[in-house]
């Protein structure tokens, strides 16, 4: 059952000229094992929403329940929540600080109170999980390449063994190859370990292939919530808020509007489009 967000509203610097509503009455239920793409433009409130999920920001009004417990309850242990909900922030390589990659990844487990042996084990496992090159474990994190730094930072969160992993624009600033590697890695983590994944992005293209559910945010509000198919069927509305459907969806939609595919039929991934086209050709 995981997360329930009940009428969440958040205002930055309330009561001043700088006051700005970043979240406006968000209602949301996130199930265990979901793989969610959270899409929206810069300033649509997606990063703010993410920071609510592990209690870094407290909603101006509304409540969040995690596994049935109110996280704003005075008795609730936010530190415990943060170990269960791992957040990888934008440009996570900016959080690296230790002398070696290994030590940096151990920072999380150490804060959880595990002994040296357990921390080392967890760090080792996490680094293996992100396919971090073995010979760089004891290197300084500052001497790594961009993609490797990011892997190390993600391992730093994974080492805490979170039940939910939130990634805020994980592919920003990466080259196409590292980007694909990273997205495949996230998919692998979701499929193998069964953790709930929420991936924040401003591009549908990035997430369509991987997620089973898309949330679209615009102007502090939750506009759409559904499977990629459901969300992309609102193509015109999406375009109004300057979000475009993936190229392959656009392509198949055009095919169907010209009569080459069945009416209203479209694909969200390249494989799906391939199957669709082959099927149609065979039927003719």
């Amino acid at each position, binding site marked *: 059952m995981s997360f329930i967000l009940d009428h969440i509203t958040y205002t930055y610097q309330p009561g001043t000229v700088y006051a700005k509503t970043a979240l406006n009455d968000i209602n949301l239920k996130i199930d265990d094992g979901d793989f969610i793409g959270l899409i929206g433009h810069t300033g649509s409130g997606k990063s703010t929403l993410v920071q609510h999920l592990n209690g870094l920001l407290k909603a101006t009004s509304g409540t969040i329940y995690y596994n049935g417990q109110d996280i704003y309850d005075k008795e609730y242990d936010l*530190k415990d929540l*943060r170990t269960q909900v791992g957040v990888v922030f934008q440009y996570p390589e900016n959080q*690296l600080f230790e002398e070696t990659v290994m030590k940096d990844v151990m920072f999380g487990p150490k804060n959880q109170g595990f002994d040296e042996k357990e921390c080392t084990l967890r760090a080792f496992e996490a680094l293996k999980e992100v396919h971090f090159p073995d010979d760089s474990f004891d290197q300084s994190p500052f001497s790594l390449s961009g993609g490797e730094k990011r892997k190390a930072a993600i391992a730093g969160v994974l080492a805490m063994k979170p039940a939910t992993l939130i990634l805020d624009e994980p592919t920003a600033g990466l080259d196409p190859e590292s980007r694909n590697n990273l997205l495949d890695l996230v998919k692998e983590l979701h499929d193998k370990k069964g953790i709930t994944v929420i991936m924040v992005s401003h591009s549908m293209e990035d997430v369509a292939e991987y997620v089973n559910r898309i949330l679209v945010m615009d102007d502090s509000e939750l506009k759409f919530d559904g499977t990629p198919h459901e969300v992309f069927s609102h193509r015109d509305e999406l375009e109004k808020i300057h979000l475009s459907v993936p190229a392959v969806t656009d392509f198949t939609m055009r095919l169907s509007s010209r009569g080459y595919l069945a009416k209203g039929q479209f694909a969200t991934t390249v494989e799906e489009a391939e199957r669709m086209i082959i099927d149609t050709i065979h039927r003719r």
Partner: protein
Amino acid sequence: MFKDATLGQFYPADSILHRLDPRVKLLGCLVYIIMLFSFKGLPGFILVTAFLVLIIVLCKVPFSFMVKGIRGIMILIIIAAVFNIFFTPGDVIWQWKAIKITDTGLRNAVLMTIRMFYLIVGTSIMTLTTTPNQLTDGMEKQFAPLEKINVPVHDVAMMMSIALRFIPILTEETNKIMNAQKSRGADFETGNVFQRAKAMVPILVPLFVNAFRRANDLALAMEARCYAGGVGRTKMHPLKYQTRDFIAYIILFAFLVGVFVLKHFFKYMILGM
């Protein structure tokens, strides 16, 4: 962590003080400080208060917003007042064992508190109504004659504006890093002084690394745009005095003269204050 740091933060509003030339405001600050530390007696005090009230009303910044930033400095004022009350020699008016309060001590404490409070409120209005860019522009122009004696006025002004520009960036960055480390279970709120100082390492190391990286990027970007110091450099919005600026100068001068006149004539009228 930095939520209450409103002291000196620019407050956008459309007021006469916001529109004044920054040079007027800079000189105004100086005049105000001279007034504040040279007035004597009740009439002088009233005149300075009148000046402060005038600029508070004119600047259209909510008073609550100004005072919010002062809260932190209040501790400093209180400590200064306490020292003045208990450790100034003079005629004893109240005594309990070794602790005594003297009349001069009490008077000094009151005066000191008023002066500090006025000083902070008055000068914070300067930064509340002036953007950092205007401020450094004003300083650069005001101190331009010093270039003749080889003082690098432009460079200092440029450094100042860059430093000011970096404050919000680094603040935001600090918050981001803190959030990231908090998400990894870091704890900044509990523990003794040493534990807390140690907890700062995961924030400070990335912060410094990023600051150096940013400084490098900025230097490169400036060089790529052929920045070569102040010689021959023109401004997009050169500072130019308007009628209102001259009127402001006259008003400032009038207040300054007023304070000195009152100080001279009413020297012995109010119990030595």
